[in-house]
């Protein structure tokens, strides 16, 4: 084993995060650049990951991760939300299988934490998404322990991350301008500025990601100059708008 990898493992072990046990159980994000950067070569299962930022952008990133986790782990998922706004057609557009998704609704922060803990601990759940506004150190520690017990991937979706928490990684997601708005004022493929703010045993980094219909998942957005001349995936509606504008 190369020395840096060994050293990294040692550090993780000291931090209470045993890479060797989780190496097999880390979940590839489907974006090679991110997988390579993360010390676990993917998102480790049995951990809590915090995703915050502009609400809808964070939701989108979360949905994409959840869809991927569902496909890879073929286990049902639980989404605990505090509003009735989750919209099936939009979620399904992210290739999320909704027949495997249990949606839990609660207005009370206590109940959300309770439900998240129960779901994480259950063991038969693959991924738990919990929309938690207030996640303090104690609560996140509890969730972390529950996730470890159930070997569940926990995604804490938050509007903003103020307090410190025991999560293993923290991601900040912001909407970014869509791929091309030139020449007309239309909306292109969705893009997000993804920033890995905190990563136990790793370094922060940021990426620009894009939704790719052809790949059915997130890809690294390439700068405009490196793109093919015309996108092959333009929808009919976009074409119509282009024609109208032209």
């Amino acid at each position, binding site marked *: 084993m190369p020395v840096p990898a060994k050293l990294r493992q040692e550090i993780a072990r000291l931090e209470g995060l045993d890479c060797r046990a989780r190496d097999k159980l880390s979940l590839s994000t489907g974006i090679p650049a991110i997988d390579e950067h993360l010390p676990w070569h993917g998102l480790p299962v049995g951990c809590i990951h915090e995703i915050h930022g502009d609400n809808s952008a964070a*939701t989108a990133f979360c949905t994409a991760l959840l869809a991927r986790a569902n496909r890879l782990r073929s286990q049902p998922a639980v989404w605990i939300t505090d509003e009735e706004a989750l919209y*099936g057609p*939009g979620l399904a557009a992210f290739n999320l299988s909704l027949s495997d998704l*249990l949606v839990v609704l609660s207005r009370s922060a206590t109940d959300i934490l309770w439900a998240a803990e129960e779901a994480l601990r259950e063991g038969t759940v693959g991924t738990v998404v919990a929309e938690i506004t207030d996640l303090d150190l104690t609560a996140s520690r509890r969730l972390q322990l529950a996730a470890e017990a159930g070997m569940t991937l926990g995604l804490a979706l938050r509007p903003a991350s103020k307090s410190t928490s025991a999560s293993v990684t923290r991601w900040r997601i912001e909407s970014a301008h869509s791929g091309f708005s030139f020449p007309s004022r239309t909306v292109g493929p969705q893009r997000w500025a993804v920033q890995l703010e905190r990563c136990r045993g790793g370094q922060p980094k940021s990426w620009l990601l894009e939704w790719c219909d052809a790949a059915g998942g997130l890809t690294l957005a390439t700068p405009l100059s490196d793109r093919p001349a015309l996108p092959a995936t333009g929808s009919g509606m976009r074409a119509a*708008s282009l024609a109208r504008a032209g």
Partner: protein
Amino acid sequence: METGAGHNGLRLVAVNAAAAAGGLRPGLPLADARALEPTLRVMSASPLDDQRALAALASWCSQYSPWTAPSGLEADGSAGIWIDITGCDHLFGGEAELLASLTARLRRHGYTARAAVADTPGAAWAIARFGHPHTFSRPHPSRGRNNTSEKSDSLPPRGEGSGWLGIVPPGTQTQALTTLPIAALRLTAAQCEELDRLGLRRVADLLALPRSSLTARFGGELIRRLDQALGDLDEPISPREPPPHLRFRMNFPEAVGRSEDILEATKRLLTAASAKLEILGQGARLLKLYLYRLDTDVDYITIGTSRPNRDPAQLLRLAREKLDRLPVPKSIESNVETILLAISRTEKLDLTQTGLTADCQHKTATSLDSLAGLADRLIGRLGPENVVRLQPRESHLPERAQIAEPVRAGQMVAAPWPLPRPRPLRLLPRPEPISAMAPVPDDPPVLFRWRRRLFHIAGADGPERLSPEWWRPANPLGMETRDYYRVEDRKGQRFWLFRHGLYRTGVEPQWFLHGLFG
């Protein structure tokens, strides 16, 4: 003493033992009663509260048998409860012991009670109200069908001490009833008066007469009551709720208050129930756990499962959720003396090797089936409407295109979602009005204000025109045609906006924000 308004002013409705000893009786005008007993304490009667208290007492009595029913308030302020103890008396050591326990505990709670056991509800009713202590004494071990009518009233039982037990040996209700007044047959006051005028005062007087003439003279009601009392006509007791399939009870020698003890007792009851269910090849779908408290309060929790279940550990977790939410007992009086587990609904559950199922499941079963236990706990705490699955619905109206379906047992159909157009990740429950500036008619706005924030639109897609579903009769929102636009602001946030109604010159268009894209 309670009073109620009668024909001529206030009259007594019920009196207690002390007042009865002073010569007061129900029906007496209040003024006369005051004259007889100047120190009389009077409360106004509330039949509704009495009914409620009687129903509560009937539910308390359900620890003796699942079939209990209040027999209603009577004119003299007394009231009764039916308990069908068929097959239940042996649990308490016999009929006499059951009655003794019942009356003793009622007395402790301040009720003056008289109880009687007989083959028919009618006879039990009669003996409890009109029986004499010397008539019957021996308990009989073998009995086909037992009914006991337990009478709890604020009146002193006529003449006898309150601990009086009446047990009519099987098949002897005719002899037992003959000496009783005809009022013991549950007749109306008018009927009694009419019979009295004819000199028919005892049940025996009626029995001596030919049935046909009785029917001709007094109608079928009298004969019906007579037959019911004598057992010639069956009279079922309609219970307050459907009797459960299985019941498991635990009495505590000393009433317990600690939640740990209650939980431990629940665990044992569930373990016993589980063993029984396994033999029957059944799983529980609906369970009720009753906590009978010393002060005659009955608390109960209901546990529903989404599929038949007989795993004591899982059921206990469900029960614990609910038990934790019961109010904390205020005093030692609210300690629990009996716990009863009633399984009201069961379903077939074949033998499965528990513990290995998770590994044995083939990989294709990725549905929510494996989440049944979790779903039950979530439903138990949050309610069935808050644990849902999103299902597509055939409608092109965005707010109707999905349906949140409560998670239930059964097949999960993976319905495909139609994806014709871009749809937001979050759809606001109601479209929110925005103030938008659209300089070009029939074009998306260039800026809008939503929730006090201003958004400059950098790009837009659309419109996608959606019309109301004219084939649906109800159009509650007064919906008009909507032109939907997907817009992106300068920061890259994407929204779903629509203009309400077609563009008309001179009319300010109304804009709404309906959803958020990622």
